[in-house]
């Protein structure tokens, strides 16, 4: 297809005033075309930066002691501080306390086994665990288990529940909003607020302090404190010691260090990952190479395709949908008669042969076929079912064959 032929040498230079055929925009043209888009883009960027700078909007996870949101826990901490408690927030729960204190762990399951062991060894006077799982229970509150008997889920909805136990804080608070995960109290534990088959609050003495296991921290939320005995219970549970340490869980931490599967990158010698980055650069260049087209796609208006037989096929579907056996049989019979007439020498009158003449001629040609049969076939009543219609079509074909080759 492609052939290049050198044209015999020097040719007259293209005329100086030849109309430029190039479609590539010049730098000035590009700037003229793009400047309003660039201005718009700059305005959007400036606006976005301004909005981001003005409205510093932090959002905290639930039960964060710094959060003023409905599900935050700033209110209870503020109430405790007003009563003279010292509170601090930490991201490292393993530090040993300098003085007797209360440690709140909102997400004990996020701690690694090593951290759990360190917390257990740190000898906090009181440990408050919110919805701990089996691993945290084993490490920090031995003897307490998830209440899983009866095959029921160890879970109950949060609602106002009477205390029904001897724990002084619970007795003082009366009923409170408790629920969530349910626990057994074990042999030494003290279960409160009993629900169907377990306790959403269990206190267990450990060493010279105690551990409070809570099924849910809902009653500590800002929105919840004003209701029932929630505030009293919260202040009682968290305010028993002069210091309060609140753990701020690291939600982005991997679940458990030793559980992490070894990934592909662990098998690459160190330093060679830089070669990987260089390969990524090469991949970007390859994408640029393959992505550049040699000119745009050429579009073309194509004519509409309408099949000429479309109306006939549509009519066939209509016949079938309407079960128009009579009409279909009539069309087939008329066509057969029209084809038979010239073969039998019967003249056509206004497009159709005379029935009597046609039947008589057919009877003459086919002496072994009763004349009544031909008439019934060509001019009989319409078929009553689909099978009769199919039979009629085949019989008409057979009749035509016999007439042509008797």
């Amino acid at each position, binding site marked *: 297809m*492609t052939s290049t032929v050198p044209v015999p040498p020097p040719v007259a230079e293209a005329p100086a005033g030849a109309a430029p055929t190039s479609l590539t925009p010049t730098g000035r043209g590009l700037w003229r075309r793009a400047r309003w888009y660039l201005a718009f883009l700059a305005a959007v960027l400036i606006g976005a930066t301004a909005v981001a700078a003005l409205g510093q909007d932090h959002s905290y996870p639930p039960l964060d002691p710094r959060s003023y949101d409905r599900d935050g826990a700033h209110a209870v901490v503020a109430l405790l501080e007003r009563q003279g408690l010292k509170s601090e927030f930490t991201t490292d729960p393993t530090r040993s306390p300098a003085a007797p204190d209360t440690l709140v762990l909102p997400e004990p399951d996020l701690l690694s086994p090593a951290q759990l062991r360190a917390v257990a060894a740190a000898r906090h006077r009181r440990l408050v665990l919110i919805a701990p799982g089996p691993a945290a229970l084993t490490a920090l509150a031995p003897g307490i288990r998830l209440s899983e008997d009866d095959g029921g889920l160890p879970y109950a909805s949060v609602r106002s529940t009477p205390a029904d136990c001897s724990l002084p804080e619970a007795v003082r608070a009366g009923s409170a909003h408790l629920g969530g995960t349910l626990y057994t109290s074990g042999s030494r534990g003290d279960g409160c607020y009993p629900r169907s088959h377990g306790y959403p609050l269990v206190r267990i003495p450990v060493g010279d302090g105690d551990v409070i296991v809570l099924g849910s921290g809902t009653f500590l939320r800002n929105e919840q404190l004003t209701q029932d005995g929630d505030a009293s219970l919260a202040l009682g549970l968290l305010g028993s010691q002069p210091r309060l340490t609140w753990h701020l869980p690291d939600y982005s931490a991997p679940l458990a260090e030793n559980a992490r599967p070894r990934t592909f990158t662990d098998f690459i010698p160190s330093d060679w990952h830089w070669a990987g980055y260089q390969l990524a650069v090469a991949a970007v260049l390859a994408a*640029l190479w393959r992505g550049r087209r040699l*000119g745009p796609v050429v579009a073309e208006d194509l004519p509409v395709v309408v099949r000429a037989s479309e109306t006939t096929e549509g009519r066939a579907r209509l016949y079938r949908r309407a079960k128009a056996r009579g009409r279909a049989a009539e069309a087939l019979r008329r066509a057969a008669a029209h084809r038979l007439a010239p073969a039998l020498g019967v003249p056509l009158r206004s497009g159709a042969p005379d029935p009597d003449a046609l039947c008589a001629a057919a009877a003459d040609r086919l002496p072994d076929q009763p004349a009544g049969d031909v008439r019934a076939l060509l001019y009989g009543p319409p078929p009553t079912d689909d099978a009769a219609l*199919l039979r009629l079509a085949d019989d008409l074909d057979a009749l035509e064959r016999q007439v042509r080759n008797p």
Partner: protein
Amino acid sequence: MALTGRTALLAALGALVVGLLLPSAAGIWLVTGAVLLAVVADLVLAAPVRSLRFGRGGDTTVRLGEPATVELTVTNPSGRPLRALVRDAWAPSAWRPGTAEAASRHTLTVPGGERRRAVTVLTPTRRGDHRSHRVTVRSLGPLGLAARQGSHLVPWTVRALPPFASRKHLPSRLARLRELDGRTSVLTRGQGTEFDSLREYLPGDDVRSIDWRASARRTTVAVRTWRPERDRHILVVLDTGRTSAGRVGDAPRLDASLDAALLLTALATRAGDRVDLLAHDARKRTAVAGCSAHEVLPAFTDAMADLEPALHETDMRSLVSTALKMAPHRSLIVLLTGLDAAPVEDGLRPLLPLLTKRHEVVLASVADPRLDALAAGRGTLEAVYGAAAAEQTRADRRATADRLTRHGVTVLDAPPAQIAPALADTYLALKAAGRL
């Protein structure tokens, strides 16, 4: 600008350098920087695309289905040699299917100050004008790492003419024409025949053609011979309305009609008749009138090249009045239209007396072979209902044709492959009968 595979390969090989010698971010910056520097150098050294000059030449018309060659001349006025990949872009229907990619691309090397020619071979698959789109040049740098790319508009038009596939039928029809033409006199007399000569009576001649006066003057019995009149007028009217858009096989009805019109034109021109053309749907699309014998066929093919079926109803009143204006004297009017009941009954039939009063009218319609296939369907319920519908359609067409025949119109209803020879035969029969 454009990159080549070499750039990516170079960057990939750079991974070895980074991995073995400089495993750090600095190493990546160093290698990538070196690659980019080479790309920029290549871009600077490549021959400029914007200043290239182009010229065109080659075929401007081609019969549909045959190849056309179009030349593209590239002049490189800069001092640097141009190593380029050139794409000569045309619409998809200008290429033989599947070859567009290969046929449109040329690899050119043009030394500075010289020019080269690239030959593009087009094989149009659609009738009508094919315009060149744009010429895109990718000018590679000396290292082959990067290229400057730009497009130029170098206009050229190739007109794809109707294929005239039925010209294979022409020799046999010309032989038949010679039999009835002056070279072979006939003994039957009709309206369109003129007196040719007297000759001696031979046994077997019709006794009615004996010229008794001439016989009286000589010693033998003389008979008159006649020949068909020459210099008759034929008007071919193409209906390009919606009925011509229906696809029969894989081409619209109009294409078969054009083919039939071309064979008739070629034959009638050889027979010494004048042929005019009118294409009409809602308005007059094209008309060719008053061409001399040797230029009528090229004029017709050219006029037919960009005829496309319109998707609206034909205005028969306007069509008939235009046709009458183009045929002031007795003519053969060949109407290439459809035989569908509704448009013919409502549009054409009331106007037919206007045409048949003074003119001989032939109506040729392209039949659909798919109808025959449908009508032969047996065995399943769907096939039998299809057969019934096809028979109904055929009966309707027959009824319409019968009604037209009663108006004195000669009606042809033939599938696409046979419509052209059938029309030519009808013309010859009318000519032999002296009805022109």
